[in-house]
Structure formats: C-alpha cells, structure tokens
C-alpha cells in the first residue's frame, strides 16, 4: 500500500473553521477539527460524516468500467463507520480527494470524483482488453462479454508468506487425523488467540508463533502424545504398518510434514526416537520412542506451518498443493490417498490436480469451509454479544443465542450443499428452526433439533433470519444504521466514510416518532448525515424496519405503520424498493454484490489480502457468480487458478 499524498484536513465544516485544508497549509491534527467545531457551535453539535461517501470518490476507473481503489490513500471514503473526530484524507501533491473542499470549500463528492476519474483513467495501467479476456480464465468460464459495472477496493498488503501457520482449527483437525483419533482433541480451543488484521482468521499475516502459542503447542503435544502412548488401541492405530523406529519415523513423519522426510530429517528423528527410553522411561522403548517423536513433530515448524518453498511464480509442488487445498477445504492434513497422488506426480498436472480437487469439494466435510467463510464474513461470532431488554422481549433469552448461530450455519450448509450461490444466499426461502426459535418466525416446532422449513416471501435469504436481525439491533429497537452498514460493507463492498465535516444543529427527539423517524431526524435530509446516510446507509437498513429487535415481523412501530420503502444508489444508479425482499432481489441482480462476494471469497480461499493483481481473477469469479454459478463452482474456479496453484499467486 502507498499513500498517494500526505493526509490533510479536507472535510467540509460549516461555520468558522480556521483551516479547511483547501490550500497548501500544513495538515491539522484531528483535534483541530474538534476544536474548530466546538468553537463554532455552542451546543448540541454533532460532528459527523462527510458527504463524500459513494461509488465515485478518488478511485481509478479502468477502461472497461470497473473502478478500482488501489490504496487507502487514494480513497476519500474508505471506512464502514461514520465516526466523530476524524478528518478526510487529502494529498500533498495537489490532488483533492472526493469531498475535499476545493477553492471556496464547496466541492461536492461527485465533482471531486469526476476529477479523479478523468485523471485516473489515463493512468490506469492494469489490465487491458476488457472483460472478454478477463472472464475467460483457466476454468473455461463462458460468461463471455458480460459487462460489469463494479467498484472494488484493492488495498491489501499480502506478505505472500512461505510459512503460513495453521489456524487453531486446522491444528486441532490435523492432530486428530495424524494421530488417528476419533474426534478432534479440542485442545486448540485454548490456544493463545491471534491478533486479527485481516477480515478472515486464516489470513497469512496474522498467523505467527508467539511465546504463548509456543507454550500452548508444547502443552498440547505433550498431552496428546501421552494419550496415544497410554492407550494401546490408539497406539496401535498410529503405528499400524510400521515395524520399528525407522519405519515409524518415516511413515508418521510423511503424514505430519505432508511430504517424505529428507535423509537429514530421518536421521534426526530416528536419533530422537532412540532416546525415548532415556527421556520418557516408561519401560517400553518402542512406545517411548513413538511418544517422543509425536511430541517433537507436533511442535515442528514443518507441522505447524504450511510451506511454499519453491521458486517465485512457479507452480507449487504436488505436496504443497495437497496440503494447501486440504487445509483450506477440510482444515486438516492431506489424506493418505492425496499424499500417494502427490508421490505419483498426479498433482503436478492440471487434470490430475483438478480431479482430486473435485473429489475434495464433493466430500461432506467441505461444508465446514463454506460455513467458516460465511460465518466470518457476516460476523456471526458477534451473536454472543446479543442482549435484549427483558421487558420488551420476555421470550428472548441468552439460551437462544447458540441456536441462532447453529441455524445460520445450517443455512450456509444449505447454500453450499444444494449448489446455490450468491442468489441463494440472498434469496433462499430455507430456514432452520427448533422449538426455541420457531415462534419468532410465527411457526411451531418440537424438540431442540433443527428442522428445515420454507419461509414465505417476506423472509428471503440470510439477512431476514433471526441471527442477523437480532445482532444488528439495540436492546429495544432495530438498528437500521447497523443493518445498513453491514449490507454496504459485507455485501456491496461499499466504502463508507469516517469523515466528519459538517456540524448540524439537531432537534430534540419526539416521543411519538417511529424508529425510522428518529434515525431520519438525526441522519436524514437536512442533517450532517444526509450524504452517507440518506443515500447509502439508511435505505438498506430501513428495508428491514418491519423486523423488530429480535427479528420478529411487525407492522407497526410506536403505533404507526412501519415504513420499509426507500431508494439506494447502486453504482449504476439509484433503485427504489418497497421492502427487504425487493431490496434483496435488486442486490442479487447487482453486479456489485457478485463482485464483492467474489473478492471476499478470494480473500478467504487464498488466505491473504487481495491486491490489484487479483483483479482479473476476481472479475472472472464475479462474472460466473452473476451467471448463477454455485459456490462450489466458484471455489473450483479459484482452486484451479494460478492465484491458488502458484507461488505468489503467479506473476503479478
């Protein structure tokens, strides 16, 4: 990432602001904005977002109508929050970001965006030949010249690490299969957490071995090795097919390291095996050797990391590919059959590799990858924070929260297993209910087990299920700002501004207002939120106003009819809708939603940030998605692509 210019204060502040950044003056610190605002307005002043949100802004419009945000510094509106105390990015080289006040301080977002567009188009150097060439990738997609009008930010900074540490889930599942346990040991749940910078927890940048994690690995390795050694049946499974220390080291090591051991490694671990009696001392030299080797290999960097050690831009080795795809789809080590295929060189050819990828994709455990992807994309871990006012919602309690999560995981499984894609995610009538959750849908069910039901037209797709609705609400009311924000960022990849600029005097709330009226009063026309909120955030949230804070359908709010109508400005123009189902239909047909989904899917499956170098691949996926290809198909396309199969994702 690069900053194209040093940020300066650029937000437009109505009133007396000593320096609005429209000249070459030095940048003002954030507090200057606040102080100026405070000085200008005596009371009840709100600092809030600039109007510069949108699909325009300071972005690069490429020849085929695709706008690419290449770096944070390029972007005037880049956040999914509207926050106080912030100012807009500017540039020291004289280029004004969208929304920055130009001479006279009155430039609008659109004006600035137009300027940026025209200058950026000339400098756009990535890609050529239009979408025809973009949508005909390795997978043979035939969507042809499908025109896309989308806006995507490619601000990522991948490290393209050669040592991608296993996630904790992967470690646990890998230990299960390596030790041939019946179930995952569950020890990794207590491992020290990772600092999270990326959207997904498998992002290479966040996966390192800290002091605490090294300790956790040691403890887990000792525990599991002891369990194997102390259990004759378990031990027999682990050592099956081996006759002595040498053969055990070779066989176990091949599965632990996901490749044959080198002669040096064979000697190293054989020597360690032979010290078992000394270092364990149970009286059974073979068992002690096995235990010591297990302890050691579970802590080895060759087990802990998935490695890519070949030349830059070259195809990964068969062993590396076997591990990469197995870890992604099944969160575990490659099967013996997969390793055998690597031994035989089958994974070195594209047809052979793709055959095995198909088999992996069709395996039932691949559902887990689809669940993880959507669960993290839509932040379902946040459900644990749901709290509702017991007086307003006496039937909602904390015991429901795990059910909300489970139901959504089943829904994601449905999308994957039933060959659905983005449209299914947004529009499927399927839901999963049990006796606790069914009443919230106006249904009844028996028992704690979930059963599949088809809901009516009022509740299409994931975003009308209880989990999303209840987790994007206050204790009492729906939160259209939060709901709208999530759809903007997670589904449409729109960039919301953190930029304050205006200061607006706002009226006191009226106790007779509906929730929507309250939100509009403070964020709608005539307020400082008119830009971001009126066009982008609120409309998407208002569509769901007929779902209360726990997701139950309602017709009135505060004694008045709920109003779910609104208009949202898509990249290709504003579109009106009457309610959530109509909105979700529009989103399902928008190029932007498919492109956004493609970008997120690529980020998850490549386990790294996405850059402008991934543009071609992302657009191919988007085209396929728009053509109603299933999630499984999109995953296959990615797994077959050079972005996945080559070191560094192929030539950049």
């Amino acid at each position, binding site marked *: 990432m690069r900053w194209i210019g*040093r*940020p300066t*204060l650029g937000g437009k502040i109505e009133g007396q602001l000593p320096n609005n950044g429209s000249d070459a003056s030095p940048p*003002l*610190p*954030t*507090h200057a904005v606040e*102080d100026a605002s*405070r000085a200008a307005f005596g*009371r009840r*002043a*709100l600092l*809030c977002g600039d109007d510069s949100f949108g699909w325009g802004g300071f972005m690069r419009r490429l020849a085929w109508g695709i706008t690419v945000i290449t770096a944070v510094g390029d972007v005037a509106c*880049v*956040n999914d*929050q*509207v*926050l*106080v*105390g*912030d100012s*807009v*990015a500017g540039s020291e080289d004289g280029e004004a970001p969208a929304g920055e006040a130009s001479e006279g301080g009155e430039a609008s977002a659109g004006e600035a965006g137009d300027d940026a567009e025209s200058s950026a188009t000339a400098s756009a150097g990535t890609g050529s030949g239009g979408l025809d060439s973009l949508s005909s990738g390795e997978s043979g997609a035939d969507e042809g010249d499908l025109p896309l009008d989308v806006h995507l930010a490619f601000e990522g900074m991948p*490290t*393209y*690490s*050669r*040592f991608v540490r296993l996630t904790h889930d992967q470690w646990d599942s890998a230990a299960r299969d390596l030790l041939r346990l019946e179930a995952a040991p569950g020890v990794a749940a*207590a491992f020290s*957490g990772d600092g*999270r*910078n990326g959207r997904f927890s498998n992002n290479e940048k966040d996966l390192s*071995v*800290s*002091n605490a*994690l*090294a*300790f956790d690995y040691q*403890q887990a390795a*000792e525990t599991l090795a*002891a369990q194997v050694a102390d259990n004759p049946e378990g031990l027999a499974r682990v050592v099956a097919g081996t006759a002595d220390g040498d053969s055990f080291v070779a066989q176990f090591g091949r599965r632990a390291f996901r490749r044959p051991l080198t002669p040096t490694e064979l000697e190293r671990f054989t020597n360690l095996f032979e010290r078992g009696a000394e*270092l*364990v001392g149970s009286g059974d030299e073979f068992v002690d050797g096995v235990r010591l080797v297990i302890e*050691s290999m579970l*802590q*080895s*960097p060759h087990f*802990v990391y998935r490695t890519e050690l070949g030349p830059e831009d070259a195809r990964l080795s068969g062993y590396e590919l076997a591990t990469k795809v197995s870890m992604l789809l099944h969160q575990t080590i490659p099967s013996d059959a997969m390793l055998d295929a690597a031994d035989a060189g089958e994974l070195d050819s594209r047809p052979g590799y793709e055959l095995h990828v198909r088999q992996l994709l069709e395996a039932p455990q691949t559902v887990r990858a689809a669940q993880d992807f959507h669960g993290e994309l839509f932040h379902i871990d946040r459900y*644990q*924070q749901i*709290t509702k006012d017991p007086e307003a919602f006496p039937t909602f309690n904390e015991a429901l929260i795990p059910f909300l999560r489970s139901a959504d995981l089943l829904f994601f499984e449905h999308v994957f297993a039933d060959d659905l894609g983005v449209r299914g995610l947004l529009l499927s009538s399927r839901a999963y209910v049990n006796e606790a959750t069914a009443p919230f849908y106006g249904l009844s069910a028996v028992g704690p087990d979930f059963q599949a039901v088809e809901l009516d037209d009022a509740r299409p797709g994931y975003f009308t299920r209880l989990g999303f609705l209840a987790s994007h609400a*206050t*204790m009492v*009311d729906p*939160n259209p*700002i939060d709901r709208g924000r999530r759809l903007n960022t997670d589904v449409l990849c729109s960039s919301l501004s*953190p930029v304050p600029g205006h200061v607006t005097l706002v009226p006191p709330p009226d106790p007779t207002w509906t929730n929507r009226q*309250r*939100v509009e009063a403070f964020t709608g026309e005539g*307020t400082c939120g008119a830009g971001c909120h009126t066009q982008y955030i609120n409309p998407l949230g208002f569509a769901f106003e007929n779902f209360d804070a726990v997701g139950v359908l309602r017709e009135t709010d505060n004694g008045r009819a709920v109003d779910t109508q609104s208009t949202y400005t898509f990249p290709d123009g504003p579109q009106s809708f009457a309610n959530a189902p109509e909105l979700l239909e529009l989103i399902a047909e928008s190029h932007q939603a498919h492109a956004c989904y493609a970008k997120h899917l690529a980020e998850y499956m490549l386990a790294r940030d996405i850059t402008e170098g991934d543009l071609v691949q992302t657009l191919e996926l988007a085209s396929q998605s728009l053509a109603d290809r299933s999630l499984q198909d999109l995953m296959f396309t990615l797994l077959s692509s050079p972005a996945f199969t080559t070191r560094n994702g192929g030539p950049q």
Partner: protein
Amino acid sequence: MTRLRHLKPPMLRRRAFLGSAGLATIGLPFLEGLPERSAWAQGNTPTFGLFIATMLGVVQGDWPDEPDDRFWPTELGPLTTDSMRAFADERCTGLLADYADRLLIIRGVNYPPFGISGDSHALGLVQCLTAAEPVGITHDATSSAPSVDTFIADALMGPGSEPLTLYAGAKGGFINERLSFSAAGVVRSAEGNPYAVYRQLMGLSSTPGGLSDRLLLRRKSVNDVVHEELNELLGRSELSQADRIRLEQHFDAIRNLEQRITDMATSCSDGKLDLEALEALNEGNAFRANGTIEEVAKLQFELAALAFACNAARVATLQIGDAYEQTRYIIDGAVTTSFSHISHRVASDSSIGPPIPEALEWHTAIDRIRMESFRHLLDRWSEYTTEAGSLLDHGFAMWTNTLAGGPSHSFRNLPYIIAGSGGGVLRQGSYIDAGDVSNDRLLNTLMYANGVPMAEAGRLGTGEFLDLMLA
C-alpha cells in the same frame, strides 16, 4: 531537546519481596526461592512496568453539551488523601484518594500532530503505546513502529524477548487488540483468558508427576530439534524479510520457553491467587462473555504482578476492551446499552443516531467502575512487599485511555494516571500539566523508569523526555 537528568534509582537489597507484610489478603507470595537467573537474584534493582489502556474516552468536559469535568482532580499540584477525597463524589480520580501519595496524574498530553485522518478508535489505539504515525485508517490501521513495551523488553530481557501482552473483554472482530507491536505493522496477540496466562506463567504440566528432571530434559531435547529445523529454514536464500521475521519470532519463542522452563518451572508459586476465579472465567469461555470485563481486568492486574515476580516479564500491557467496546455494564441494577453507544451518546457506533438521554450519566458511572478496578490494582500491588517496599516502589502501572473523551474522540488531553515510583524515578503525589506535549515524551520517560538506561530510553518519537514526571 529536553534531556532527562540522571537519577540513580535507590538500591534495593537482593532479597526481594517477602510477602504480605502482615496482610492476610496477600494474593501472591513474591519471590519464594528465586532462580539464579532472576532479575531479582543478580543484585539488580529491577523495576517493572504495566501499561493499561482503556477505550472510548472519559468524561472530562471536552464536549459542548457536557462542560463538566468528571475525571481530573480539581487543582494542579500536590495530591493528598484529603484533597482527593474532597472531590471523590464528583470526579472519578478521587476514588484513588487512599493512594494519593503514590500517584502521578498528568494532563496536557496528546498524540503527536500527524494530521492523520480516519477512524479515531483505530488510530488512537495504534498510537497509544507507539506515539508513531499509523498506517491505514480504520480496521486496517497498524503502527509504523514498535510499541514502548517492545523496546523495554528488548533492552531489559534481551532482543527478541516478549513483553507480556494481556487483554480483557470480548473481541468484537472489527478492531481487536492493536496496542502492542513487535515491529512496524506487526501487532501482538493479546491473551484475554486469565487462566491461560496463569498456565503459561506457571508452566503447568499436564503430565502426571509435574516437572521432573526427565521432563525438563525431554523438553530441552525437543526444543533443540525445533531450533535445528528453524535454523535450517532460516538458512534458505529465497526467504523474504517477512518470512525471516516470522521464523525468528518462532525461534525466539522456543528459546524464551526453554529459558522459562529452566529458570522458573520449579520456583514460581501461585500463592493465594484466586484460582477459583481463574477457573470460573475459563469455564465456557466466560472471560469473553459480556459483563466480565472488569473481573478479567482485575485478575490480569494480579497476573502481571505474578509475571514480574516469576521473572517472566519486566513489562506488560493490558488492553481493556476492543476499539468499539460493546460491554453492557450494569448501572443502578439495570443493564445498559453497549458502552460504544454510550460513549457516542447515540444508539449507534458512530456520531449520529437517536440520542441516548442517560448516556452521559452512564459514561460517568462506567468511568467510576473502571477507576474502582484500577484501585484494585493499587490495593494488590501495595500488598506485594519486600523489606524495601511494595511493588509500587519497584514498578509502575500507567492507566490511560486511547481517546480523551467520549463524543469528542479527541486526541488531546489524554488521561494519564501513573501509580508507583518505578524504583524511585517518578514523581509521586502530584497532579501536573505536561503543557500540550506529545505522548512520546511520556512513554520515553516511562521507558527509563522501567529500567532502560537513559541512553537507550529515548526510542519513541522525538526521543525527548518529560522532566516534570521525575522525582
């Protein structure tokens, strides 16, 4: 440049903390049977530092609608128990009145004027212990330099040594831990489970029989193998700088683990640490459940002290809450809305949305709850004693917030409370105005108070110190 005048910390006797000095409620038996490599056992006078960062600002009268200051002491100058009690009902720092003579409260400190733009939550968090210009402006924000605890750990424990990195509360996922940086752009994960911290510090073995000589030898042998493998990988020519950093971090982690095994495994006692509380918070991941944040913070205060006693760390950080802290506190018997909404004064995580009429009073109450938690640290740390004094004599705890105020989200006049003298280096019993300076000067001075030689302590920002902080 303002330079720190040289002060020699008072010498402490080799025999370190002895225990509770007669107090029955002592949580930790400081330093029973110290290992030979302990900082305490080398005739040194070690000092310890804990950097605590809370979120979402305090109520300090920096918002047009809220002119009343409910945080700072009423007058600059000496702090006494009586003077602090006099404003304890109106201003939360008064709740620390019993420790007036151990406090240094500092106003007039800001983040450096980088002129940056973006999400104040993220930017404030990133700058809090780095005083460095952030890279990225929202959930992608990271630091362009290591944080102060990294410099301290490197200087006092050797390059590659890790500070203790703690956390309290749930991690919402948008901007989680972002306080401690091992290098530019490399954030440390922070452990939020006190039980896990305890296990790591005590080196508890799940192996029956505990840490036998044979087990210690086995661990060493396994670690030797891992080190060999890492060395081989580090010898490869095709690695990028990022790859090397990752492997070196792993290498150092194994080395540190081995050193801890060797030094501490048989000598560090948990004393009267509340194991039941630790286990209760571990059960069902209660440590990250809504509403346990303050209990977790209190235990982390004690565990930091245990880490110091066990020579596992000389410096620690504790981030309390994530950048959009969603804790729902119980105030006057009722569960409030999320703290983030309260801080913004509206029912959203932004500046705009339906107002929350009670928000100011709730934020005031939350400030007082947080100050009561910090008082718990003072209670405990003053009990951990040697014949030469308490942990407050041997170290310091810095309490701050990543933002100055709630709705203002300001980076100016950040709240700083420093408890403890840092081995006699820091001024005590004072409320001072630093005079509109950047936090690099404060952090550099604390680096020195933590025991880093003066010549090496000015690692942040301009390299300047803040003389006013000195005794």
